Structure formats: C-alpha cells, structure tokens
C-alpha cells in the first residue's frame, strides 16, 4: 500500500458506526474497501472485490443496530408519530 493510501485508509478508519458493536468491523471493512477502490476499481479493475466477507459480517451488525434504534430507512417518523396523516394542514 502506498503511504498516501495508507494515511487515507487510517483517516477513514477513525470514524464510528451507528451501531457501537459494529465500529471495529466497519473500520476493517473501510480499510479494505478504500484500498481496493483506489488501487483496483478506479484503475479499471472492478472485478474480484476482496472485501465481501468483511462486508457481510459488518452489514449484519449494522442492520441489527438500525432495527434496534428504529432508524427510519424506509418510512417517515418524527416526534413519536408514525405514518399517520396530520389532523390539520394550512
């Protein structure tokens, strides 16, 4: 790995995941992805992603965290109200 991509990979690795338990998995995956992205994908070699196993584990963890935190990926929710219509509108 070049020093440029090593530094960049390290910078990306300092970010957290939405799920606290997933942060280590996320950082490991990010390092793998950033290396592949810069050195293979952008240079025209998009085949053979070496990060798929890391990604699967990380994804499973994140999806669980999203459900637990009730993050509205699919719907609209705020102030404890679900998808019901408002009573009044201007």
């Amino acid at each position, binding site marked *: 790995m070049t020093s440029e991509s090593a530094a960049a990979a390290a910078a990306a690795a300092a970010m957290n995941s939405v799920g606290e338990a997933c942060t280590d998995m996320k950082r490991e995956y990010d390092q793998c992805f950033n290396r592949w992205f810069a050195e293979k994908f952008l240079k025209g070699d*998009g085949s053979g992603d070496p990060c798929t196993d890391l990604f699967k584990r990380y994804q499973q963890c994140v999806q669980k965290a*999203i459900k637990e935190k009730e993050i509205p990926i699919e719907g609209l929710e705020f102030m*404890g109200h679900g998808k019901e219509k408002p009573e009044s509108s201007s």
Partner: protein
Amino acid sequence: MMRVWSSEHVFSHPWDTVIKAAMRKYPNPMNPCVVGVDVLERSVDAQGRLHSLRLLSTEWGLPGLVRAVLGTGRTMTYVQERSVVDPAEKRMELCSTNLTLTNVVSVSERLVYTPHPENAGRTVLTQEAVITVRGIGLGSHLEGLMVSTIASNAKKEDLAHPDRPSSPWRAPSDAHLEWQLLFLSAVFAKTLHLQEDSQKGFFDKHRFRVTFRSYC
C-alpha cells in the same frame, strides 16, 4: 413552498484524486457533528459501476433543549446517501436525503463530479439542493435563510486542495448538517417565548405532511 439552490465548482485536481478524497471525507474536523458513517449496501453492476447506499448519523449538541421543545428524546438525525461511481465514464453522482425531521422539512441534494471538459487535470462538481419547509409559520423566511447559508458556505469551502488526499476537507454535501443546525435554531427562536406547556401543543398543531421533491 420550496427553494432550489445549485452551484458549480472546479477542483484543481484530476477526477480520480477528487473521487478518492470524496469517498473518504469523514472524519472531517470541519463537521464534527457527523458521528457515524455506515455502508448499508454496495455492489458493482454489469456495466462496472459501483453503487453504494450510506447512512450518515449526526448528533445534535443540544439534547436537553431538543427534548424540551420538540417533545422527543431522540437527538440523532440521519441522512441517506446513494452514490454511483462510473470509472470508465469518470462520473460520480451522489444523492442524499434526510430521514429524520421529514414531517417538517425535507432536503434533497445531488452532487455530480466529472472531469473538466477542457482540462483533464481539473474536476467539475455540480451541486443541486431542494429544500422544502412546511408549517410552523417559518416557511419562506427559513428556506431563504437556509439556502443563502448553504450557498455561502459552499463558496467558502476549501475544496481545491486534496493534494494530500488524507487531509480533511469540507465537502459540499455537508449542506445537510448546515440545514439541521439552522432549522433547530430558528425553531427555538420561534418557540422559546411560549410557555412550556404550550410548546408541545405548538408542534402538535403545526405538523404538516411534507411534499417531497427529490433528485434521488
């Protein structure tokens, strides 16, 4: 009522360099409110383009006040970002929308990075945002404020120096963070004069369904 804002910016760096920096822009000390970035989906399609879906988590700095005024203990807000990178065409498009506060405001933003048509050593970023605020009686004033703040911040941003790609730089799609802070500030200013028990009633009365216009 909605406002639309668009801008164009030229980086003095080739497309590959800018894209690598764009993918790694967090952590960014210019925006410490972004506390989490997660990839939810990622795949390469049959044309060799990389598709990604990311979740950005932003933490408010004012949990007590948010809870009192908005009637919710939740202080995290979320943005969903979809992107497509085409390495053959040298085009990256990102589209982000807010997932929280959608009852009262919607922000949809699209960014497109392409090589400069006249100079391969430079990159063009075009950026568009649609901001819609409903209800609360703040609509047009707040939209105007948000748009002008986002526009002026985009101009100030140090976009042209990813010569050290690992150095942090402020990317235009951080508009989502700007509007969230602005929105809350305006809401507090509007409601702080009310009695505490009236504040919750104020928000219950002024919930509106959002008309969602999106580039995504």
